[in-house]
């Protein structure tokens, strides 16, 4: 078949096949995707996402010294452990009533900027791109590869590749140029991280109240020189990604439907402004909006709120398909927030985690992940927000709010402009990420290199401000405090792949309750009590299949691209199950069409 052959418009009698990918090489642990695919009409008709790992942080944190929370919760994630430590410190700083010195905020911001650059690079170039590399495209869409060989790369003068197929060859694992260079870049950016936070992945110099990093000029010049060494790589990455993704839309009409779901995005904000943040709950809306990545909830393209208090109060942790006992009959820890607003029983502050291991049953309970939702009081709906893999929601939210205005970044209301200085081979460059038409697989992936550029640009600003403080002799990086007998706190941050919150309740100077909510439960959640599927399930379910292989040698590349576009927790590669799926004897009629809002 040719790559541009129109997809069938008339529905044929369904030919349903069970296909599963388990392990998908997981999230923190194990992610499995179970689907039913209609090969006659070439679409996915059903999808279940399951995680088969329980670890129990919210259980064993109880009774511990709250100051230990950051050190322990770092270990939730082997790639963004620092995001957890940072978020935990934010929550603790609220509970202890302490504001770290400005230089400490810059050091944390610089560490986080390096983390975003590292993690997005290794994930996109070494793992996501394997799905778009020459070898994979040849195995799944040979016609597309033939066309890529004939198609000149429009941004060749920036990245240096002549055709789209040349770029795809550079993506080939272990041998391609981009693959190899990305591994090297991921080491340089991790060194930048270590300069600020001591170790990667579990940082050693972050504390509630500040940091222990010695704020000598050397730390900053060592960081800056490394940043400038990778700045051209960042510019090239954006150009290469744009070329490949634009080519997909053009060569495979309808590809925008792959992984498309309603625009239901959440971003909790990142990069504190030390001049504004004081970590008090009462002023959280103000300092939340001063963050250099603006928090926000976006529904069908509309910004519902960018107030962190609203975001906090709308959090709901639902059950339905998860291996846990409900806590509805426990007594609540927090009935009202510090502003006097009522706090729901399903809010993380009131959650009790009681694991109940049991048999996997896709008609009932099938995952160790719970179902976080955001309650939209306008419509009385529990929204299965996704994070867009992180960057999509971050850029979208920042662009719509139009609040960020710095020497290197400008949010315009419909786009984000990012200016990067001259590098070794490329001139000063301004990139513009515009709010896309769809929330789909390609746009989630495309947003990632733009956010690497964003993080690099923010790092330049933090460096300048930090050096200014050092030169002025303002080198304090830690502020002392007392742990109160009773307190509550919440931290909002962005892990690399999206929203991250920590909720903390202290009683008798000990942790009475602690609930971290990283992005993966939001994205990988199973069906909730109302039957609403989680974002992976929703994005895969109903998506068309463009792969040229039939059921016998099906690889599922379109499905894997979709799941991977959300950046499932670890940069874990791997790719696809090839399998001979089992043809179902009982045929269901597909109930999921392309009903995207």
């Amino acid at each position, binding site marked *: 078949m040719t790559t541009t052959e129109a997809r069938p418009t008339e529905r044929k009698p369904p030919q349903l096949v069970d296909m599963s990918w388990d*392990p998908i090489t*997981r999230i923190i642990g194990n992610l499995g995707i179970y689907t039913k695919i209609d090969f006659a009409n070439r679409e996915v008709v059903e999808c279940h996402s399951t995680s088969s790992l329980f670890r129990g942080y919210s*259980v064993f944190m109880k009774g511990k*010294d709250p100051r230990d929370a950051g050190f322990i919760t770092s270990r939730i994630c082997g790639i963004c452990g620092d995001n957890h430590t940072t978020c935990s410190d934010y929550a603790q700083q609220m509970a202890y009533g302490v504001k770290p010195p400005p230089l400490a905020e810059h050091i944390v911001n610089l560490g986080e900027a390096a983390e975003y650059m590292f993690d997005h690079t290794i994930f996109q170039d070494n793992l996501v791109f394997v799905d778009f590399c020459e070898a994979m495209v040849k195995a799944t869409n040979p016609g597309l590869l033939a066309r890529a060989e004939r198609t000149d790369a429009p941004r060749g003068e920036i990245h240096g590749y002549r055709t789209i197929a040349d770029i795809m060859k550079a993506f080939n694992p272990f041998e391609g140029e981009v693959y190899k260079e990305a591994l090297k870049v991921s080491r340089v950016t991790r060194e930048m991280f270590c300069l600020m936070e*001591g170790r990667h*992945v579990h940082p050693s110099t972050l504390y509630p109240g500040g940091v222990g990093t010695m704020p000598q000029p050397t730390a900053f010049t060592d960081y800056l020189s490394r940043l400038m060494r990778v700045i051209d790589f960042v510019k090239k990455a954006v150009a290469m990604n744009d070329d490949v993704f634009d080519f997909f839309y053009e060569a495979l009409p309808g590809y925008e439907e792959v992984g498309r779901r309603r625009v239901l995005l959440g971003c909790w904000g990142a990069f504190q402004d030390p001049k504004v943040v004081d970590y008090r709950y009462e002023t959280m809306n103000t300092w939340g909006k001063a963050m250099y990545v603006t928090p926000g909830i976006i529904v069908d393209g509309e910004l519902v709120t960018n107030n962190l208090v609203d975001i906090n109060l709308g959090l709901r942790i639902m059950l339905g398909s998860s291996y846990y006992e409900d806590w509805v009959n426990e007594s609540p820890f927090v009935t009202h927030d510090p502003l006097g607003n009522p706090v729901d029983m399903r809010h993380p502050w009131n959650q009790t985690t009681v694991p109940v291991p049991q048999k996997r049953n896709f008609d009932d309970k099938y995952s160790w992940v719970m179902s976080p939702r955001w309650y939209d009081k306008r419509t009385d709906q529990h929204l299965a927000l996704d994070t867009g893999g992180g960057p999509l929601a971050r850029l979208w939210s920042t662009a719509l709010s139009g609040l960020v205005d710095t020497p290197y970044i400008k949010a315009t209301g419909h786009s984000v402009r990012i200016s990067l200085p001259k590098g070794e081979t490329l001139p000063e460059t301004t990139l513009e990420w515009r709010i896309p038409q769809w929330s789909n697989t390609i746009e989630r992936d495309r947003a990632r290199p733009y956010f690497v550029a964003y993080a690099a640009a923010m790092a330049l600003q933090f460096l300048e401000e930090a050096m200014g403080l050092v030169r002025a002799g303002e080198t304090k990086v830690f502020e002392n405090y007392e742990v109160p007998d009773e307190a509550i706190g919440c931290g909002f941050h962005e892990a690399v792949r999206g929203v991250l919150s920590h909720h903390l309740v202290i009683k008798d100077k000990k942790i009475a309750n602690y609930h971290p909510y990283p992005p993966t439960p939001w994205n990988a959640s199973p069906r909730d009590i109302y039957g609403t599927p989680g974002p992976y399930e929703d994005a895969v379910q109903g998506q068309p299949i463009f792969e040229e292989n039939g059921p016998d040698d099906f690889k599922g590349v379109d499905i894997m691209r979709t799941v991977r576009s959300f950046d499932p927790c670890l940069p874990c*590669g791997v790719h*696809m199950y*090839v399998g001979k799926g089992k043809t179902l004897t009982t045929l269901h009629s597909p109930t999921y069409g392309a009903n995207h809002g």
Partner: protein
Amino acid sequence: MATHSSTAEVSKEPSRGEDREGFDEITILWISEGMSCDGDTVSLTAADQPSIEDLVLGLIPGLPKVNLVNKVLSPSLGGEDFLAPYRAAVRGDLSPFILVIEGSIPNQNIIEGDGYWTSFGNDPETGEPQTLNWWIDQLAPKAWAVVAAGTCATFGGIHAMSGNPTGCMGLADYLGWDYTSQGGLPIVNVPGCPIQPENFMETLVWVLYHAAGSAPPPPLDHMLRPQWLFGRTVHEGCDRGSYYEQANFAKDYNSPKCLVKTGCWGPVVNCNVPKRGWMAGIGGCPNVGGICIGCTMPGFPDAFMPFMDEPPGGTLSSLAIKPYGAVIRRLRGMTNELVNHEPRWRHNKRKLTSGYDPHWRP
């Protein structure tokens, strides 16, 4: 204070390579489905001496050809295709292989009924999840060597802390501390939360040289850790250690001085990170302002909590060093002042006072 007593060497002095044929090719089957954060796999990709590409592409002379099966790096297919080498090893069709376990091992025995704490693929016959424990039970007896990557796999780590619901433990607790592999090796433990990248790669490369028949087995201590990496304490490699000697202690984290009073366990923790740095000599813990929380140790984390308080033993030893340190600091201060001046003969007056004598003889 620093001590070597906790690392009594129990394995024999490394002997010369035995007279046996080495392997030309070996497979590494890496399973990270333990209770873990996968931070050890991620850390591994930070190693540069050697790097994972060097290993896989055969750029290290004298090693067998290495087939690495690790989900992060494998360009292979996932699901059953990814699991194929593991299944072949279970059947006895893939040999030799090194089994690397990442993450602590949950106790399935405390579960009643059909539940599971963690799984790795499904049973092809029944479609039910296959537990990590099942895989270890199948693979450990057939493995040529077994390596535990990170503190979770070595000693249980964070997930095995008090109050945990899963009954987690380290690999040696699960298989028995006297376990020996087909290659005659005990479990090789590389602790660290996560592993220091080069510590792990270096150990793995030693095991691979041993597999090639060109090196003795790596020397391990009584907790099965490589002696050359874990035989010294954090304190002994820490560039803040001299502050301790001079009784110069940081009161909070705003200081480059010794952190022992703000919660650092460096004097009693076996780890080389301050000396080696984290990556390319950069970063670390107390050397760059982070307290040592003992993350390489069997007692981690409970024995070291709460982390941000002075360790109980620290009060006495830091008190004892106080009078000595105060005197030494003062004396050194005086000498330092002295050597911070240039000799008097360096001047631009009209007379040479350097002691120059053209006819000088001894």
